[in-house]
């Protein structure tokens, strides 16, 4: 067993475990923190797979995203502390089956598909960043620009639907 194999397995199990905890706990703050830990374990997994830039980006982005999510959850939930052990689920059996079937299907594809030759080494961290920069500002520039434009549109749309209408405000 190589160190890479061990750490991919370790961080993978951690990510799955915290992912399950998100829907198992009654406390919303714990739920948001569990999602943060799950995404951080995923970032560590990216680092193990030698994707340094993406690993660091994932950890930084998710740390801020989940902190904001925790604030919103406390604001919007009827029982944010989970003191009343209120059940906030529906169609549990169907959801469990859908989740299980997706998992089994994914594993079957992972195991039975012939993935072809496996690359032994990846480029160094500095070279990867150079390659990614050239890719983003070269061949994939249109897609990259579209992503930026979509984020801008989403920001405007989110602000527009969440601000209080002027008419209501004056009343």
């Amino acid at each position, binding site marked *: 067993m190589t160190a890479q194999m061990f750490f991919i397995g370790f961080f993978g199990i951690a990510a799955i475990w915290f992912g399950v905890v998100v829907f198992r706990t009654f406390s919303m703050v714990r739920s948001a923190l569990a999602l943060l830990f799950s995404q951080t374990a995923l970032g560590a997994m990216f680092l193990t797979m030698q994707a340094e830039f993406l690993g660091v980006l994932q950890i930084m982005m998710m740390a801020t995203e989940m902190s904001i999510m925790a604030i919103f959850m406390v604001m919007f939930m009827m029982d944010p502390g989970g003191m009343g052990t209120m059940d906030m689920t529906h169609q549990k059996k169907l959801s469990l089956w*859908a989740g299980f079937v997706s998992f089994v299907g994914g594993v079957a594809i992972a195991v039975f598909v012939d993935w072809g030759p496996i690359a032994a080494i990846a480029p160094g961290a500095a070279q990867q960043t150079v390659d990614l920069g050239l890719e983003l500002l070269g061949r994939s520039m249109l897609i990259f620009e579209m992503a930026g434009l979509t984020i801008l549109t989403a920001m405007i749309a989110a602000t527009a639907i969440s601000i209080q209408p002027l008419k209501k405000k004056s009343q």
Partner: protein
Amino acid sequence: MSIELVLALTTGAALFGVGIYGALSQTNLVMIMMGVELILAGAMVNLVAFWRFLHPETAAGQMFVLIVMTVMAIEMAVGFGVAIARFRSRGSVEMEEAVELKG
């Protein structure tokens, strides 16, 4: 067959499965968004694994991960916008109460 690749893809499949369960079973909008985040996280693991073990010589795989991260950010921004609007008009983000959205 590389065990590392299979391990990473299995993690992706498990996160996808947990996310599907969460998105379908939860009644709160914020919790449903958490399920969708896990689904996208599963997709990201697969993309990084494909890049590392199959095509590390091209950066297109990494670029795809950046696009998925963008989708995650957009989902959060628009989702919370809708949640604020819903909370302001109805006082709750419980989706079982949103019967008027039924087709």
